[in-house]
């Protein structure tokens, strides 16, 4: 006997713990399986791009913090690089090293949050998230030493960073770097070989690499599909051409490899941090001659960087005034969702949530 079933439309979110913020998925189910999905976003839209047009170039830094709020430092970095290119400002060497140190610490934080919440999506309520949050806390303490703020840092400035790291920052950073490898080992022991994790994540949410390239998907997601594309390596910005690191590339392009790439990248970030500490030189953390109010010449500039979630960049247009004429963000979180529908069709509800989790999005950046 065959049963004729009618598909049921379910709203997942916007207030749902596994939607990573305020995102609504309208999903059509046939029994337990997804037959169609549409995302409804905009609940966190604050009009950051419009607000930027009414602030000076330096003030806009505070808006960038609030886009991807678990990776403020890399947002600061992407924005400042575009301003420096637009205005032709040369950063000080120490400023660049400090920006790289803060950005790599931020990458570790972002991946910790991604892994922690992914495990929560898998049903491991609480415990793994508490582990990753414990490490995140250490980094946030470091950020507090650097700039006084933990989340909305606004640390970077045109020509460097707004203040040098205090003396007590360096021993604390060493302590963190001594502890972190063991803690990543801990995750690997607990998570990477776990049978439940393997059976639920291997071979699920597979997406072809050429489709991802065509859909502008970047970052760990693309590298988990076997594409060797890391802007720190392919289009080096700051001093990334002076540090050596490996690029974890996986071929499976499934949920498990997307998770694993992030874990491996944390180790690579530690390697980069070590080389930054070895190479940083004394000197001013920013050029005191660069004024607070900048008037870049007419023109436009776009500098892409490898953010924790993918290619991140700001397209700035200047009309010669004190604020950007147009400030457009390239949001990896939003663009990585382009193929979400294709990824989740045919999956059960629980696997859909996990697949969504491995894309690693941040709603502050999706909606801006």
């Amino acid at each position, binding site marked *: 006997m065959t049963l004729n079933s009618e598909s049921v439309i379910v709203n997942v979110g916007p207030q749902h713990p596994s939607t990573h913020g305020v995102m609504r998925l309208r999903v059509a189910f046939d029994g337990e399986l997804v037959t169609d999905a549409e995302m409804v976003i905009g609940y966190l839209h604050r009009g950051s791009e419009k607000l930027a047009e009414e602030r000076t170039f330096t003030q806009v830094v505070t808006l960038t913090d609030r886009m991807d709020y678990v990776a403020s430092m890399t947002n600061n970095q992407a924005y400042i690089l575009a301003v420096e290119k637009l205005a032709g400002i040369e950063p000080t060497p120490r400023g660049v090293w400090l920006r790289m140190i803060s950005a790599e610490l931020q990458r570790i934080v972002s991946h910790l949050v991604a892994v922690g919440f992914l495990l929560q999506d898998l049903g491991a309520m609480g415990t793994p998230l508490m582990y990753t949050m414990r490490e995140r806390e250490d980094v946030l303490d470091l950020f507090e030493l650097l700039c006084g703020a933990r989340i909305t840092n606004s640390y970077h400035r045109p020509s460097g960073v707004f203040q040098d790291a205090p003396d007590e920052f360096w021993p604390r950073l060493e302590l963190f770097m001594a502890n972190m490898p063991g803690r990543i080992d801990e995750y690997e022991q607990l998570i990477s070989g776990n049978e439940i994790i393997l059976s639920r994540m291997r071979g699920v949410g597979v997406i072809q690499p050429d489709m991802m390239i065509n859909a502008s998907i970047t970052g760990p997601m693309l590298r988990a599909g076997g594409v060797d594309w890391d802007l720190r390596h392919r*289009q080096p910005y700051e001093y990334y051409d002076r540090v050596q690191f490996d690029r974890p590339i996986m071929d499976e392009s499934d949920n498990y490899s997307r998770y694993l790439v992030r874990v491996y990248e944390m180790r690579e970030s530690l390697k980069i941090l070590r080389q930054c500490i070895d190479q940083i030189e004394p000197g001013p953390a920013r050029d005191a001659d660069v004024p607070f109010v900048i008037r870049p010449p007419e023109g436009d500039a776009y500098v892409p960087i490898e953010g924790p979630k993918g290619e991140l960049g700001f397209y700035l247009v200047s009309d010669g005034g004190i604020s950007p004429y147009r400030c457009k963000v390239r949001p990896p979180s939003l663009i990585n969702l*382009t193929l979400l529908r294709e990824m989740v069709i045919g999956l059960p509800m629980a696997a859909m949530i996990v697949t969504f989790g491995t894309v690693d999005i941040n709603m502050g950046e999706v909606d801006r």
Partner: protein
Amino acid sequence: MSVAMSGAELAEAIREIDSDAVTDHSDDAVWVTPSSWPDVAEKLRDLEALRFEMLTLLTTVDYVDHFEVVYHLVSLSRNRTGVVKIRCGEGRVSPSVPTAINVWRGADLQEREAYDLMGVNFDGHPNMKRLMLWEGFEGHPLRKDYLR
């Protein structure tokens, strides 16, 4: 290290695809006509010498007397970047350009966002509706004449 293709190089390459397509070029960008865009976009992706597989960023800018759509393209295999711009909506009248979604799927959400916030139409987009704001919202906030 990736090489950004200069506007002159891109203009030359595009003239070979369609001799009437290019209207102007600067140091780092090339301007093409809206009508030539679907064909030019496909060739930019497929021609062996160019291979721009990824449309990394689509932006719209309101220049008061006209609008501009800016395409940042990346070739992963050649490790090159290029910038193509399209002038549209002269005199602020109904700005529209043909969609690039059939060439680059990555244009999907970006074109919807551009339509939502800037009011530039992308002809041929299969799902041209607002992305961030709700249906029924009046106006396009990123336009320079949007009243607060």
